[in-house]
């Protein structure tokens, strides 16, 4: 039985022992795939097929397969890109920032959130490549040495900054996530029975032995990577926002964009984490690890960032009025009352009004309401990017060029296609990788002598007596409640 604090709610409920943790989490990996997972994967694979078809049409025939025109040269492509990148942010925030702030509750969700980050960035990265007229020349954006002498990339261009920001972000996130996985892979390896599984997981675990030195390095690397990732939480979406902020398009040319975009990214990211966690905890029966407390905490972050975003929306209007710039004023009047008013209204409702419901404790702790709310926020944040991109472009300076945008079937196919890609990756991850960081969750269990990594009195006299592997002091409170 687990030690239960009288004053503090436990982070993991259900009286889990260390063995229970291993058992619960490895079970999903070791067991035969269940029918719900199979069904979900088939749906995801169908949409992945849609994605491949849409990519084929785009690459074979050209960007003309989309609904873009001479006035609106970006629409769903960049909307989806920003949306996916934003979603990724919550993972990094949870794994890096919360680690630095020693928020122990992050342990149960950081693995899945980081995986979400990586898959979201993969989905996001599809669009900058696919939206190119000639994606086969995408390597031109890298500052590669070439035989043409001074031919180089344009360091003035925010799109180039994006290349660096996204590739750095992806690399660091991947490394951070993978290093966290290594001890857990080792656990699975040690339990694996099949030869393929044994081989695969021993390859994946890089020969992890769980020695004290290894753990110490693991901790150090985690901290260093957390330190590296933290600025990335801010920088990536700042740079993405500069795609717009450095332009001359009214409605884009706004200095408020970097903080506004970062807040929006965390907002949407937490919404997506919630969506995924609420599904995962039910599908894989992880209710004890992802508790109502987690949900409530994430709801609070969502509400705060949602409010920041709301303030940003209002500030834009204020600045448009205050600047007295005709084009800027019209851009915002048109945004709210023009032909795309419904997109603006959707954005305001979903992003500013609905998250305020979290003030009610009942909403905060309600799983169905939170789920609905998280979906609404995801929709709202998609519309935010659509509103910024399309309503600014479709009526800019010269009224002669004003035009409307409507998506083609391929636009829609690509978007739902990346959802298919994302969920395919996520489902494969959830099946074959440990969805919860066992090693770290074990550290937040208050454990007993019975089931903890034990202190061996016989070896106590040894000159290099090992410290308890999982950092529990020898003087940890001992209770004599028996296991089971």
């Amino acid at each position, binding site marked *: 039985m687990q030690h239960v604090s009288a004053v503090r709610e436990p982070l993991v409920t259900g009286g889990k022992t260390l063995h229970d943790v291993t058992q619960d989490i490895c079970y999903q990996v070791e067991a035969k795939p269940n029918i719900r997972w199979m069904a979900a994967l088939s749906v995801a694979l169908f949409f992945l097929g849609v994605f491949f078809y849409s990519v084929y049409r785009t690459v074979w025939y*050209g960007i003309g397969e989309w609904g873009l025109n001479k006035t609106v040269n970006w629409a769903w492509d960049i909307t989806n890109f920003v949306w996916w990148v934003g979603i990724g942010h919550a993972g990094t925030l949870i794994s890096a920032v919360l680690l630095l702030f020693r928020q122990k509750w992050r342990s149960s969700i950081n693995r899945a959130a980081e995986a979400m980050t990586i898959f979201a960035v993969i989905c996001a990265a599809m669009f900058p490549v696919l939206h190119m007229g000639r994606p086969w020349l995408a390597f031109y954006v890298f500052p590669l040495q070439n035989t043409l002498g001074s031919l180089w990339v344009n360091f003035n261009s925010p799109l180039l900054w994006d290349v660096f920001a996204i590739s750095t972000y992806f690399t660091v996130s991947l490394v951070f996530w993978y290093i966290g996985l290594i001890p857990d892979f080792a656990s699975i390896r040690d339990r694996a029975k099949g030869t393929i599984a044994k081989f695969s997981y021993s390859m994946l675990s890089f020969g992890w032995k769980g020695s004290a030195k290894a753990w110490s390095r693991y901790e150090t690397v985690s901290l260093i990577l957390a330190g590296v990732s933290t600025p990335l939480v801010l920088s990536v979406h700042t740079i993405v926002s500069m795609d717009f902020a*450095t332009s001359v398009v009214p409605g884009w040319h706004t200095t408020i964009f970097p903080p506004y975009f970062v807040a929006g990214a965390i907002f949407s990211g937490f919404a997506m984490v919630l969506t995924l966690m609420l599904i995962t905890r039910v599908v894989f029966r992880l209710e004890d690890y992802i508790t109502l407390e987690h949900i409530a905490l994430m709801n609070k972050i969502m509400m705060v960032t949602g409010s920041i975003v709301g303030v940003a929306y209002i500030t834009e209007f204020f600045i448009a009025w205050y600047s007295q710039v005709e084009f800027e004023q019209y851009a915002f009047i048109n945004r709210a009352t023009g032909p795309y008013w419904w997109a603006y209204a959707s954005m305001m409702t979903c992003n500013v009004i609905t998250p305020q419901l979290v003030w009610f404790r009942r909403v905060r702790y309600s799983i169905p309401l939170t789920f609905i709310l998280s979906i609404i926020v995801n929709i709202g944040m998609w519309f935010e990017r659509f509103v910024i991109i399309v309503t600014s472009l479709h009526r800019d300076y010269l009224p002669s060029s004003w035009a409307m945008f409507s998506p083609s079937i391929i636009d829609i196919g690509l978007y739902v296609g990346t959802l298919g890609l994302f969920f395919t990756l996520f489902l494969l991850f959830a099946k074959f990788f440990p969805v919860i960081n066992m090693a770290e969750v074990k550290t937040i269990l208050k454990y007993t002598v019975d089931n903890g990594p034990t202190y061996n009195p016989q070896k106590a006299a040894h000159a290099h007596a090992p410290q308890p592997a999982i950092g529990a002091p020898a003087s940890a409170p001992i209770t004599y409640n028996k296991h089971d």
Partner: protein
Amino acid sequence: MKYWKGIEELESAPEFMQSAFAEFMPVKESHASSDATSAPRRDFLKLMGFGVAAATLASCETPVRKAIPYLNKPEEIDPSISNFYASTYFTGADYNAVLVKTREGRPIKLEGNPESPINRGGLSARAQAAVLSLYDGGRLQHFAIKSGNEHQKAEVAAVDQAIRTKLAATTGRIAIVSPTIISPTTKKAIAEFATRYPNTTHVMYDAQSVTGLLQANNGIVPGYNFSRANIIVSLGADFLGTWISPVEYSRAYAMTRKINRDKRSMSRHYQFETAMTLSGSNADIRVAVKPSEMGAVALALYNAVTGAGGASSYKNDKLAQAAADLKANRGASLVVSGSNDPAVQSLVTAINQALGNLGTTVDLTAPSYVRQGDDARMAALVNDMNNGSVGAVIFYNANPVYNHPLAAKVKSGIAKVPLTISLNDRLDETGILCQYAAPDNHWLESWNDFEPKRGFLSLAQPTITPLFETRQAQESLLRWAGNNTTYYKYLRSNWRALTPTDAAWDKVVHDGVATGSALPPAPAMLHAALAPDAAAAQLQRPASSTGIELALYEKVGIGAAGCEANNPFLQELPDPVSKATWGNYVAVPRKMAVENKWKQNDVIKVSANGYSIELPVLIQPGQANGTVSIALGYGRTLAGKAGDKVGANAAPLAMINANGTMYNNVVTLTKTDATSPIAQTQTHHTIMDRKPVVQENTLAQYIKNPKEVTEYEKIATPDGLEKPNKVSLWQDYSYNNHHWGMAVDLNSCIGCGSCVIGCQTENNTAVVGKQEVINRREMHWMRIDRYYSSDHHKDEFETVGKVGTYAAMEDPSDNPQVIFQPMMCQQCNHAPCETVCPVLATTHSTEGLNQMTYNRCIGTRYCANNCPYKVRRFNWFSYYSNEKFETVNGHMFTDLGRMVLNPDVTVRARGVMEKCSFCIQRIQLGKLEAKKQKRRPVDGEIVSACAQSCPTEAIVFGDMRDPNSRLSQLLRREDGERAFHALDAINVQPNVTYLTKIRNAESEFFAKENA
């Protein structure tokens, strides 16, 4: 010294010595032998087999390149060097003297002939596009004889023989039907034909005829000199767009509109018209009238000008003002009318006479010959054909089955004529019904002469050998008449009197134009055929005051005859006013649309004369109440791939009366359930009071102080208000050699669209077709933005509120003022597109140009988003290989069509951004020419295609570093007066400068100052 081939030779090993001096390895005798020095026979065979196979495979891979060198290089053709030949474009309506640019012996572009006193280097859009028609695969490529329902290819001799035999046996009338012919030598050839077959008559008819004008003026179309008119009143004549000689008139008109601080006067232009035409949109004062009121307007104007007391039912303040202005400018005013009613035209002549304009603005000594069609004779011929008195009919570039209002009767008539011959260039609606097809050469393959106005001659010379097995029509007629000379010899001998020596002839061929006349002098003095009173009595009365009146008009691009319908450049040229492409539509006034609950694109059925067509509705500001307008020239069925089934044929809706064809009628309109989207390149029509985009002011203000007509935006800085370019993040470029720039005078620009097509032919811009225009993806590098004025302005912000006012400002006025703004890449010095391209595909040149490097472009389209002028065009598809574009952009798909492409300009790949380059290839050519001669380029030597084609010289291109260039002088003079940059305050510092439009009337465009 001795070199060894190897260690074996040095050591003289016996194995080596054995074969050292043998040429071939000894062939091994038996398979079993293991002797290494002899190559086995089987290996030899294997090697040979491999060798043959490898050689075959390698040769399969080698692409076949059809580059055939000249065996004997023509003296004047050097690869990559352009040659220019003078020629003339005239297809029955629009006359332009041209220079044909040829590369490697193929015509690729037409430019205005600056030597021509008529079009003076300007060129209409239609003429610009004509070079594409040469390579039209829809042309009939050989002579043909109809057997059954099919035309079978036939030998020229066989066709000649059959026609000669049949003509000789013909007992009835022989009719040659053609549009207006202004070629003296062609007329001579026809006369010779008529001598051989004495019962021949030559009937000319025009798809948009001016029979009424001819009747009212003793059979001539007077020469109009708009340049001497201070007051211009047009009663429905679209003289800037389509009426008689639009390029000539535009040029003269623009001379009266160009102003500067030393010449603060300009003409005032009144336009009374039904449809909103190009002329109407340029008018200072425009009044919308019904077609049936036009007679009353003419009468009222006559009465007001002469003081005669006749009764007219028409009263209007603007008319009184026009009359007063006319009376104040006797001898320096001009009244023209587009009506085909001789009574109206008689009144107009009487007005001009009363104002003393005959001899000043109405030139009787140099009448125009470009319209000679006689509606009554044509109508009589159609009747004769039907009653069987016509024995043979020859259609010479005439397509009455399509474009004559009596098309159905023409069709039935052709069936009753024993011998029918088509000289048309394709098996069109008429040609398909004829027994013999003897297709004419394209004019770029032909010799010919022209007399567009009395005393002005020009020549056409072939610039390429005939592409197909065709023969020039004149030569066909001469052959059939028994004259076997070539048409060139015939022409040359006809010119013997004018050019007795070969040198004189060569000069005319070189210049393309000459003075002198082959025709008898025109009547020296002329008066209206009808006395004013008689004319007033004869005026066409409104048929019914309640019916909806239809006005048929001609489009600037396609023309009324439909002969250019298969030219995709013209199909995609936006109508200057409605900005619609690819098809015609029913232009309705907003009031009518609201009353009937019609929305744009709703299809309605238009019926008259027992004929009906279905077309979508376009709400056209300025359309007279109670009227609708439909363009002629659409709805071809046998024009070719691009031109078939585009719009509907409105010609049979015209009214035929005793005087001829009236291009108006009373129609019934019924709504259908269908909708059909109209492909417009501009769908928002008002300027939204955005003065930073385009500026205009009144003449009164300009006379008062030229420095106050343009509003300059200033930026607040700590040191006070500054010009926007004084506050910058960026370092300025320094231009040490050239700094190319452009000025566009909005006062001279009439919006005709000639530059748009000039740019398209010069720069190989793709045609994208109707659906892609609907998708807002047309590729034109240059466009003409057209803005209507609105009834609502920013001064209502306080009372109505911003949201409501902005919404109201989106609606144009019912009879709006119009402003045209040519828009192309502004070649910004601080270009927003350049900073955002991640791969430096768009960069700044040392001569101030914003350059696109197509090779480097990966197509992120960020540049296009960040372009405030939205002039960048993206290649959404492979327009040269995607089958979706084969019908509309066919010339990029075939070897024949590709001959028209400018070899100096890349055809852009899919996924690449493109835009106006200021015709960098022309700049480069000019610079190289100058360099070869060790001098600086001379001003005017380097001209962009748009500036070259502009009939009104509204576009001035030049080097801003050259202080003496026309451009520099203009910019210095206009600085602080009319010169402004579009969107100056965002500090992108364009190299294109606009000159504020000055309106000789009250301006309704922007909110009044201090209102």
